[in-house]
């Protein structure tokens, strides 16, 4: 897929109507084209309404009390879904896709190291729990790739990477602790997502650097 073709398919991708094969090509292109990732980020506010469109017609009013009571019971048993603005998740998912595709390309190029975890395509209604699991898997993949490449990096560069990651990890831990105390807080959720985004972006840069050295 070319940059122009990707631009033409942005809306279809955001609304989840792009056929699977084209969506895969779309994501593969994002994994190797920083310019298109930047374009996608820039378009996120415009695409937001598409990500928040209702997926189904609301049920009849008399069904609601029973559903609500079931949801309430399920909510008490485990973590629920937290409302996060669509563009945050769009940007987060775009980065995740880019990072995951980058890891895939990296591992394929090297011809070893086992297959990285497969991260599903962008789903606008994804929950934070799911997103964090995917972030964590992508983070592990990148950390592993970086670890394998550490012999090619100068000690000064490794020190820079460690210092930056320590700052990000500290912020991530602090935000997650605050979110654990107030799990329904959308703004705290955004801060956790922002910290993950920072971490993955930094790991991606460090990994790209190690492969280019």
């Amino acid at each position, binding site marked *: 897929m070319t940059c122009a073709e990707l631009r033409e398919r942005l809306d279809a991708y955001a609304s989840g109507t792009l056929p699977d094969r084209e969506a895969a090509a779309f994501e593969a292109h994002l994994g190797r084209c920083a310019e298109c990732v930047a374009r996608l980020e*820039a378009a996120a506010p415009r695409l937001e309404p598409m990500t928040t469109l209702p997926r189904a017609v609301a049920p009849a009013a008399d069904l609601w009390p029973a559903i609500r009571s079931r949801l309430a019971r399920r909510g008490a048993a485990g973590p629920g879904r937290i409302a996060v603005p669509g563009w945050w998740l769009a940007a987060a998912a775009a980065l995740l896709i880019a990072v995951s595709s980058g890891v895939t390309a990296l591992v394929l190029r090297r011809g070893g190291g086992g297959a990285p975890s497969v991260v599903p395509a962008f789903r606008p209604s994804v929950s934070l729990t799911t997103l964090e699991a995917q972030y964590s898997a992508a983070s592990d993949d990148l950390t592993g790739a970086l670890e394998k490449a550490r012999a090619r990096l100068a000690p000064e560069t490794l020190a820079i990477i460690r210092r930056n990651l320590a700052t990000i990890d500290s912020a991530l831990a602090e935000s997650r602790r*605050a979110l654990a105390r107030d799990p329904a807080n959308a703004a705290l959720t955004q801060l956790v997502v922002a910290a993950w985004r920072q971490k993955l972006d930094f790991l991606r840069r460090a990994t790209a650097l190690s492969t280019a050295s």
Partner: protein
Amino acid sequence: MRLSPLVLLPPLLAAPLAAQQKVERRFAVAQDVSIRITNTAGVIRVIGWERDSIVVIGALAPGASFFGGGKGAFAKLGVERMDETVAGPGSTLEIRVPRGARVSVRSVTAGIEATGLTGELQATSVSGSIKAGGGLKLLMAETMDGDLEVGGPIEITRITGGRGTVTLRDTRGDVLATTVGGPITATGARITRAHLETVSGAITYEGGVDGRGTLEAVTHAGDVTLRLPAAIPAEFELQTFEGTIETTLFPKGNVQHQPRDGSPWTFATAGGGAQVTVRSFKGAIRVLKQ
């Protein structure tokens, strides 16, 4: 002036040169040529000019070799060393390129400077500083530890820093700047859309926001200071969980707001228009009159 084809088409082969040797190369290229430049340590200076050719003048470090070649729409050049992981003296490259070129520059510790360009610049470094002049259509710059400085209006700016400072002057258009610990400072700004984000660095923004524009500042621990025109028509959403909020935009003077449980403070000035959003976990937020 057209140069002889024999001079213009040097082979893409590394040419080992003696210690501290000078290098000079010329290539005829298209005005919108894509150029890749690599120099791990030292200085890379890229200067846009009106001619449809590339001229490289450099001083190579001991043990380094120059490579370069290209014609028409693509050129590639740079400096190689035997062992890039060992620190050593750097090489200096001064490269004149067509103004409208698409330039990609990569370094490890080398500083990167670019002026006079009107096309696209992608600059990447580990710990080197990056300086770019205004006039570009697109700037994508990233460094993990070096400082980043942009000296004029650019249509689209994408900056990723680490612990170094990010300084943006006469900021315009669409800006995305993120750092880990480095502060971000934008002065003389008049943006359409800006997203400034740090983990622990401070964010300072001085200037205006276009009528329907958006300005977002996000930090975990860094303080955020916005200095905006007194009569800016904008809607504000300011949120910090453990910091404080202060503004001097209201006629009654300095107003301080102590958020409860991080709930956002929203208000509008001059009937609203632009969107200004600041979000921090524990940084202080100050929105001040210019």
